[in-house]
């Protein structure tokens, strides 16, 4: 990892008024939602009502949109790569910057929620806090890899568009896999004939899901007698795959001042 790139990327986000204000506002909204749940619920509270892990997606999107693609389209890369810098390190620095920044936000949010519960109900932090933080960090690191991978393939902010298309595709495929066995087209296609495609559609849907939302479901990992190897390997595979794609793309990208002109 290149520390200069890492620091520069973090500084770039910190100096952007738009990103700071949007993320700050969303952070306060999430915290407010959680606090309202804690204070105004009519039910007994036995543990902090942490907001759902997927509510953190907007932070990753705000910071990760065009994380490499913008450098490609604006021509900054030709300046960056004119220096003695390994391209692998450039990709790793970008990925780590995004992961660390979003993880910091996620941890801060969880700690704030826990603080509110501790002050209100005098509850001490327990294992739920750890599992919530671990789950959020896994999403931040996983989705950051996806954003970096897609951003290296598509210039500008198109990585966000591609992610949305993949997410839509995932939704359609998941629904299709569920409804295929009961889809009835009269005598043209029998139910059994339709049902034979279910495993294929399901597999493609699951693969798209793992690319779009790579995370470790801590109820699956922590509550199991033996942690699910398939879940952990699948998550690691997605992260490595997206980073490999990004590095491969960077290594094969020809950038020069002449090209720009």
């Amino acid at each position, binding site marked *: 990892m290149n520390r200069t790139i890492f620091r520069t990327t973090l500084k770039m986000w910190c100096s952007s008024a738009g990103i700071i204000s949007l993320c700050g506002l969303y952070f306060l909204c999430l915290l407010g939602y959680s606090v309202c749940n804690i204070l105004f619920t009519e039910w007994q509270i036995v543990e902090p009502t942490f907001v759902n892990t997927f509510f953190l997606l907007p932070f990753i999107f705000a910071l990760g949109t065009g994380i490499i693609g913008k450098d490609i389209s604006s021509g900054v890369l030709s300046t960056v790569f004119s220096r*003695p810098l390994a391209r692998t390190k450039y990709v790793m620095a970008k990925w780590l910057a995004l992961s660390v920044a979003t993880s910091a936000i996620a941890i801060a949010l969880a700690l704030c929620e826990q603080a509110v519960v501790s002050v209100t109900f005098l509850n001490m932090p327990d294992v739920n806090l750890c599992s919530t933080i671990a789950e959020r960090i896994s999403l931040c690191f996983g989705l950051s890899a996806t954003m970096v991978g897609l951003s290296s393939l598509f210039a500008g902010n198109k990585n966000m568009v591609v992610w949305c298309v993949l997410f839509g595709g995932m939704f359609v495929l998941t629904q299709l896999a569920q409804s295929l066995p009961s889809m009835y087209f009269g005598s043209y296609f029998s139910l059994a004939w339709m049902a034979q495609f279910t495993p294929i559609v399901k597999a493609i849907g699951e693969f798209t899901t793992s690319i779009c939302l790579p995370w470790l479901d801590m*109820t*699956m990992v922590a509550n199991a007698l*033996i942690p699910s190897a398939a879940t952990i390997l699948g998550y690691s595979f997605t992260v490595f795959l997206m980073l490999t794609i990004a590095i*491969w793309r960077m*290594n094969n990208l020809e950038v020069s001042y002449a090209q720009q002109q």
Partner: protein
Amino acid sequence: MLNNSKSIKAPSRATAKWLPIICVLLFGGKLVADQLEAKFPPSFHDHVQWRNIEDAKKEAQARQMPILEVVTNNVNGEHFKTLERYYFSDPTLAKIINTDYIPARSISTNSNNQWGPSYHYERDPKSKVDYATVRVVPLDLQERACDDYRLPHLYHTPGFKQNVLNFLAENKHYNYGGYNSIIAKHSWCRLSDVEAKAKADKKKILYFFYQQYDDNCYNVMRYPFDDYDKKKLLDKHFACSIVLDRTSPVAKNPKYVNELVKKYEVQSYPTLVSVDAKTGKFEKLGGTSNRSEIDEFLKKESGN
């Protein structure tokens, strides 16, 4: 010059040759793990102290507590494993279940209701649909006949643990006796008897077209039918009967239910149909659980 040229030498681009190899290994490992986990499903720390249903009934009577019953056809099925993974392996939830309820697990190849006589439908064994239903059987319903759909059911929402906590807190004291008891709120007529009873008592018939596992239908069940104040109005003016829609990929409605649906042109659930037993004229209110609309409909139909 030579030194300078050395210092600005471009770094190697092939530093990440090991990454694709790791990717392939991970993918291969994942495929193998998937196959293994399909054959040997992962087990979870099930912290709930399960009883069989007979022991649970005795213990519930002795300790005056509600039963939390899980009905499943396959404890190794995907559905039950999901419940185990999200609920029963969670120490907080398991602790509440163990202290506030008598947890019981019953295995059934069809969803027949052991708590009451009227609801039963066969599932097609060829369809291999595994199911697991979590429901609470309050103390007063353990001795009296009741229908499955009157029992509070837990709808599975993974990731929203607070919903489960709410459900457990809400139904913990669901067994208070008297008029607040769920079964005491309204006495339903059977579909076969409702017409004769309405004519004899000079009341209107009120059909409640109900679909299981539908939130709106459940809300209408809670209001007006489970509401103490509305019970007086309903008892005075109506003979009420439930028409349960059982349509699913593996089950069909009985003929008489289809006839009623066709006769009263029911297009959505829940639907309330008020029928004049003498003339056969009917009015209906469909697709809503809005309390003010229901109040208005009942007021109009009761002639108040």
